[in-house]
């Protein structure tokens, strides 16, 4: 085995740990840990919108536009399309606002509605999600000595996640989007925590195997060329 392919394999082994991380306390970003004030504001705005005060919906949009756009971006990896998807999501949220009963947090309901829309958007538009093999092939020419920029390397893994089968993709995207909050991921996906754990494990396993296989294939091609 050449030094180059060895490095490449080690790279994949390092980044793809098969174990599922536990529920980690969240600490950063505006996407998590909405405080009680924010939750109260959401409830008040929902009530006002339902009473006919349309401008209150603007507060909801302002509070949640960034999270919804970013969640959409994790699916399509395209900024403009992510904004389109988030716009559709807000419209859907407005139409279904009367169905929000307050059983769960508003954020959970909001993400669940958006996620349904994003899923069907991905199915309907059949967005060009690159397969893992293609990504590795693209990266093959740049990987060998791990000289690729860390940012590009990270982006490659993120794009590979978007190419997973839908249920594993959803679990991985939502889990990391909500900063590894297993309980909320389960609530958003509408399944049990055990199912989320299984999907995460399977998704990561699938990713690891595919990337390793693609890497090995790429390495052998390079050896022949040498």
């Amino acid at each position, binding site marked *: 085995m050449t030094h180059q392919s060895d490095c490449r394999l080690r790279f994949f082994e390092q*980044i793809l740990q098969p174990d599922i991380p536990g529920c980690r306390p969240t600490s950063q970003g505006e996407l998590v840990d909405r405080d009680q004030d924010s939750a109260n504001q959401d409830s008040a705005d929902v009530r006002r919108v339902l009473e006919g005060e349309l401008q209150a919906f603007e507060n909801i*949009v302002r509070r949640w536009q*960034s999270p919804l756009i970013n969640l959409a971006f994790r699916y399509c990896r395209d900024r403009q399309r992510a904004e389109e998807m988030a716009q559709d999501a*807000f419209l859907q949220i407005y*139409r279904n606002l009367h169905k929000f009963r307050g059983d769960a947090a508003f954020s959970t309901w909001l993400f669940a509605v958006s996620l349904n829309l994003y899923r069907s958007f991905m199915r309907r538009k059949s967005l060009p999600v690159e397969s893992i093999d293609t990504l590795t092939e693209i990266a093959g020419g740049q990987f060998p000595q791990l000289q690729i920029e860390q940012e590009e390397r990270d982006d490659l893994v993120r794009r590979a996640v978007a190419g997973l089968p839908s249920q594993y993709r959803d679990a991985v995207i939502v889990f990391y989007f909500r900063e590894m909050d297993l309980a909320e991921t389960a609530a958003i996906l509408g399944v049990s925590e055990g199912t989320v754990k299984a999907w995460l494990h399977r998704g990561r396993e699938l990713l690891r195997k595919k990337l390793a296989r693609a890497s090995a294939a790429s390495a052998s091609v390079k050896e022949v060329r040498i």
Partner: protein
Amino acid sequence: MNPDDFDRILISDRQIEPSSSFTRDVMLRVEAEATYRRPIPFPWLRFAAIMLVGSVLAAWLFPADSVLQAGRSMMGAIARWIVAPPDVALRNALLSLLASVAGTVMLVWLSLRLTGATR
């Protein structure tokens, strides 16, 4: 790269900032949605319930035998009237009326379909 790097990579994705017009665009669509008057849906459930109750009442008030007999005699009378009408002009006028009613119903149905109305 340590074992937590996979988590790090996926948890620290790029943060997209909404474009300056995003809120305005959403609100324009929401306002359009709010002002759009949805057609009043036909009350199918109520209609079905009324039909069901009406049928049960009719069956109770008019026994099947008498209804069938009346139906048969009525159909026979209509058939005889069409084949050998006492007044041909009246028959033609009635048939024209029926044809125009049927044509109107079809046109309304076609218009609804073309405008995308579901009901």
